């Protein structure tokens, strides 16, 4: 399984790492038992994402997708941000190995949860819908071949 150059770039030097202390919205998804946990904090201004930071415990793809999704979302309207799909994330990274596609779901999910958190805190209607934060949201892929330690 080989990562694209873009994935390795974002993994090696992830953008927007950290926590916004006085965040307007917080999204936390994943589960340490699954090995992937992501926390996104956002600052919102005029329904646009003004600032965004993430923390991720996870594999190379999890970190890279977290990094790219924050890049993508920064400056977007909330509606645009929650519309980002896992395939767009993967595309932006020059592709992901099939077995890693679920990581891009983690990133988009984190973003959605943060946006809805912001909206709900403001007493508004959530727009992203319910995210089961511990659900890995993917079909175990048939075509991966790195199952075991040798």
């Amino acid at each position, binding site marked *: *399984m080989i990562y694209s150059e873009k994935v*390795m770039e974002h*993994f*090696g030097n*992830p953008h927007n*790492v950290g*926590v916004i202390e006085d965040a307007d919205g917080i999204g*936390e998804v994943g589960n*340490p*038992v*699954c*090995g*992937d*946990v*992501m*926390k996104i904090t956002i600052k919102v201004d005029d329904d646009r994402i003004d600032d965004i930071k993430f*923390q*991720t*415990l*996870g*594999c*190379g793809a*999890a*970190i890279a997708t977290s990094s790219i999704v924050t890049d993508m979302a920064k400056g977007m309207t909330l509606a645009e941000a929650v519309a980002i799909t896992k395939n767009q994330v993967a595309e932006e990274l020059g592709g992901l190995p*099939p*077995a*890693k596609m*679920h990581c891009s779901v983690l990133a988009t999910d984190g973003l959605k949860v943060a946006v809805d958190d912001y909206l709900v805190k403001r007493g508004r209607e959530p727009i992203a819908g319910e995210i089961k934060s511990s659900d*890995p949201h*993917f079909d*175990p*892929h048939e075509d*991966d071949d*790195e*199952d*075991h*330690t*040798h």
Partner: protein
Amino acid sequence: MEHKAYLDYAATTPTDQRVVDAILPFFTERYGNANSLYALGRDAARALEDARERVAASIGARPDEVIFTSGGTESDNTAIIGLATAGGRATGHVIVSAFEHHAVLEPAWWLGKHGFDVTELKPRTDGIVHPEDLAAALRDDTVLVSVMHGNNEIGTLQPVRELAAAAHARGALFHTDAAQTLGKADFDVTELGIDAASFSGHKIYGPKGTGALFLKKGVRMAPYLMGGGQESKRRSGTQNVAGNVGFATALEIMDAERPTEAPRLAALRDHLVERLLGEIHYARLNAVDAATRLPHIANFVIPGVEGEAMLLHLDAAGIAVSTGSACSSGSLKPSHVLLSIGCPVEFAHGSLRVSTGRFTTEADVDYLVEKLVPIVERLRSMNPLYEKTVAELVGAKG
């Protein structure tokens, strides 16, 4: 990047130049089919039988007890399925340890789907399958027990002799997967009292795609690869003469160098354990209580980091190690080995296997620790749950 450190010898090894030299003539000159009657074929047959004798001598077996295969996986498949189904048997009880390599587990599961009853026997938290536990799991209809000689992830050495005796006491056959131990620990089939054992060439500086199966004289086994009847009808397929000569040569080198190499690697391992545990907070050695372990494998849990991320950062520093985290599989399942010895799932994701070998130096090990410390720090700083994890760890300690 100045320094490079290959620290994944348990995954595979470079082929030793002396092995390559031994192999080369068999490609272009001594290329006969070992089953052919004419001079070129007889020459190949002699080389093959010579290789067989050398392997037999190393493991204390008779030459006709050595079957050449395409690797550890084929040997394991052949032993598990071939021994269980020998003579057309279609039912019975089979015991395998829960932390076997998948090359043993999968055939056992296959048997489980085809009429056999399969027990996965757990090792204890020390990473050892205890003979009493095996004795308790054995039944009157147990036909086969398979417990690996040395575990490939955590490096614990199993009491194979006692386990084999326990199996025999109840009339079961005993197989051991020795892919990780051949050439690295003493291995004598008579002393161990086993019926079958699997070996892999690429773990001992031999070529990939080579291996062997020890099968005790008189033990019945259904062949797995069927066809031309080579290897005395026990493994069909034109023999890989070059590869088998390479395997035998590699094993001889292992045997010759073990007296100095085993203690050297054990000292390196101890040095690594001391430094790594000293410099990385909350790091733990897996199976720390094992009474017996291989000199070349050390497996750590580093709470608060994920294995693949750690591995990729080390890779960027020129360091090759492996992780039991199987995030890469898409199944999100962490190492079945670590889980079998009671490692919590969330920590199993942060495991680090360091395995050393012929070309490893103390500088390599030091370089690893030096690079690892900031990587762990960085990954932990990116972990949204790290503080919670530490609180739990400290709580558990107190």
